[in-house]
């Protein structure tokens, strides 16, 4: 049994730097590559793709990526763990196997974690007494049942550990917690008891630090951001995990970016609620217990992590169709850029009103002035403003109203205030609004299943 492993973060979201996983497995030694592809809305997008083509529904970047990294990972025995299986992890695994065959790889074992997709089980779950009430509003899911696009349970590390125990080179899951991807290899390699909640929390926190890719190694760093070297070739984070529960966050040498107390601390506070109660399927981690020590040379020790046992529930993430939205922009130049943009907005709203269109919301923002900080934005002397981009967005349950809105933007160029440009790409089309429905489900109602596919 090993007492130290190196786990590399390869992706922080679907759409992250495409070459990052390649560099993680080539620029230095690592034992595991973990890749998080799933944001809250990603599952519904994948579900739509699967509805159109039953062979889709996973992160399509994966097979392409595997062409580059699979031979390296097989040779160096680097195991890959990803939740990029989305709503179709089996199809994802088969696509990876296809790549392996093309590359003439002789031996490969993929573990696929299934059972998180409960979209077709909603009725059965409701009739068993669990109404999947919205965690934020308390409302029963029955009211939106017919509009559900996707429904997935967040599994933790344990199903991945089961896959690793069966000697899988790759573990592909559907909806697994981002943190579980990193915790799993620690449980597997170090033989951690899943009832040792301090250790579960230590691995979970390492996962939280890795889950957003370079956001812990100098990317999107709000401190002294200009001090971050060579962001162009930023190194993604690596967790050097020790069997006794300490973790050192670092990155490969000869890469850009920075791992420091500050860069890690910023990631620790990212998207958390009560720090004493960071709930996952594996444990409840206490972020206020963590100690960070900056060891210098892009190494930060994370230790003293405490935690307690998990709840009897899994979190469920459902998405449902909730109307349509559209947005468009126009750019106005000096002089009086803001006054012109505001006048154009007024004209547009009057026209939408005259057309008797129905909107749930119309929102106008002035990019270059207040689109980020709203009423906190400083007043500006218009003489100093070179240009302003007007951005108008609408939302409605009436498709026609949103579609018609899209036809009212371009006319503003010839029928509104002057020195306007920047309308390109045609009329904006309505896109479906996907609303998010978080709920809880008793753990006993769902069972993760691990399927092995072998070459």
């Amino acid at each position: 049994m090993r007492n130290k492993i190196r786990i590399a973060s390869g992706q922080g979201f679907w759409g992250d730097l495409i070459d990052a996983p390649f560099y993680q497995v080539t620029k230095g030694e690592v034992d595991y590559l973990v890749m998080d592809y799933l944001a809250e809305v990603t599952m519904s997008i994948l579900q739509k793709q699967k509805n159109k083509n039953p062979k889709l529904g996973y992160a399509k970047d994966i097979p392409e990526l595997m062409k580059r990294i699979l031979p390296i990972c097989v040779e160096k025995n680097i195991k890959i763990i990803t939740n990029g299986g989305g709503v179709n992890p089996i199809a994802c695994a088969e696509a990876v196997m296809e790549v392996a065959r093309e590359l003439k790889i002789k031996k490969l074992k993929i573990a696929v974690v299934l059972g998180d997709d409960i979209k077709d089980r909603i009725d059965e779950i409701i009739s068993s007494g669990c109404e999947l009430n919205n965690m934020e509003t308390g409302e029963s899911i029955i009211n939106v049942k017919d509009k559900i696009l996707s429904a997935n349970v967040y599994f933790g590390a344990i199903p991945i550990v089961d896959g690793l125990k069966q000697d899988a080179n790759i573990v592909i899951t559907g909806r697994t917690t981002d943190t579980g991807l990193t915790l799993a290899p620690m449980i597997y390699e170090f033989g951690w008891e899943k009832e040792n909640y301090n250790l579960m929390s230590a691995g979970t926190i390492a996962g939280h630090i890795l889950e957003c890719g370079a956001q812990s190694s100098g990317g999107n760093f709000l401190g002294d951001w200009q001090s971050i070297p060579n962001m162009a070739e930023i190194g993604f984070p690596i967790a050097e995990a020790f069997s006794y529960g300490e973790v050192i966050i670092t990155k490969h040498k000869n890469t850009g970016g920075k791992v420091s107390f500050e860069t890690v601390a910023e990631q620790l506070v990212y998207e958390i609620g009560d720090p004493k109660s960071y709930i996952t399927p594996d444990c409840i981690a206490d972020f206020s217990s963590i100690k960070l020590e900056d060891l210098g040379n892009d190494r930060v020790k994370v230790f003293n992590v405490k935690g307690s046992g998990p709840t009897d529930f899994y979190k469920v993430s459902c998405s449902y169709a909730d109307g349509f939205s559209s947005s468009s922009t126009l750019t106005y130049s000096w002089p009086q850029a803001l006054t012109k943009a505001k006048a154009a907005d007024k004209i547009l709203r009057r026209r939408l009103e005259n057309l008797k269109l129905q909107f749930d919301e119309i929102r106008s923002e002035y990019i270059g002035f207040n689109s980020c900080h709203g009423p906190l934005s400083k007043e500006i002397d218009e003489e100093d403003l070179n240009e302003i981009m007007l951005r108008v967005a609408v939302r409605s349950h009436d498709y026609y109203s949103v579609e018609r809105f899209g036809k009212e933007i371009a006319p503003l160029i010839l029928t509104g205030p002057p020195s306007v440009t920047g309308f390109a790409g045609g009329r904006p089309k309505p896109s479906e609004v996907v609303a998010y429905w978080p709920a809880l489900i008793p753990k006993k109602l769902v069972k993760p299943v691990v399927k092995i596919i072998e070459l």
Partner: protein
Amino acid sequence: MKIKLLDIAHGRSGDKGDASNIGIIAYDDNGFEIIKRYLTEEKVKKHFEGICLGKVERFELPNIRALNFVLHDTLGGGGTVSLKHDAQGKTLAAALLRMEIEI
């Protein structure tokens, strides 16, 4: 004496549904004492008037000299429902760091 929050702290913000969380980290212990004392829920709520329409919750992480604020009803519905340019509240940490504190 007036202190710019930006000079004594950094941070990061993001989304959880329609709520935004803003983590503010002081650069040193003295800075942490200042933010702990002056950056109250009420003050943050008032700062975000017109942006945060719900309640503000504050949590402490003295281990990393940080405070975490959860601003409810802030992102115009959250996710793909929100029509905001910054629908995920990514720039709200910077918005909080605009604050000046009288000490």
